[in-house]
């Protein structure tokens, strides 16, 4: 698996989290990639945690 390939897949992770429309083939490719590529699985988990952290700010005063 090339780095370039991973970069290309990762560009869709955010869209995927948002439920944005992704072409079917691309969606399947990203999904498949997320079952076999450990670095990308970690990256995706980290991105999801970031989004959850942002949501938690809603009722929290900034310092």
């Amino acid at each position, binding site marked *: 698996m090339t780095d370039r390939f991973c970069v290309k897949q990762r560009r869709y992770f955010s869209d995927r989290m948002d439920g944005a429309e992704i072409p079917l083939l691309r969606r399947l490719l990203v999904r498949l990639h997320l079952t076999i590529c450990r670095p990308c699985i970690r990256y995706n988990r980290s991105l999801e*945690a970031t*989004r959850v952290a942002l949501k938690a700010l809603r009722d929290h005063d900034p*310092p």
Partner: protein
Amino acid sequence: MPVLHRFALRATRDAELSRDLAQEALVAAVAQAGSFSGRSSLRTWVVGILSHKIIDHFRRRAARPSDGGDDAQLLATPSAEDVERVVAARQELAAVDRALQALPELERMALLLVDVEEVEREDCCRVLGVSATHLRVLLHRGRNRLRTKLEHD
């Protein structure tokens, strides 16, 4: 802290300016009350007005350009420890706030509107004056930059 002040403070990082903008938004909301259609919640509507004011302020002040380098950031694969650190940061919201402040203005606004305030994408595009594609790019870059900052703080 009132919702509008909190939102403006996160967006501008300036306590005095954020109070002024929040007040301007409230005055504008009262003046435009007749145009509130009820399509969104009142909170979302007023946050939208405030966002317009903030974006206008950024434009007047000529926002700094984004620093690029996204591919390099995208390639930086987090270790398992990094992921744990991001998860731990969820508990420490101040760290998230600090990381958010370091983002380019448009990316920060996109994350504040979509992820924090949960404003509809369509409304967010209108407020920010960007296309749906541009908004997706802003969200992607913003989340990625924030993730990287949380991992390394």
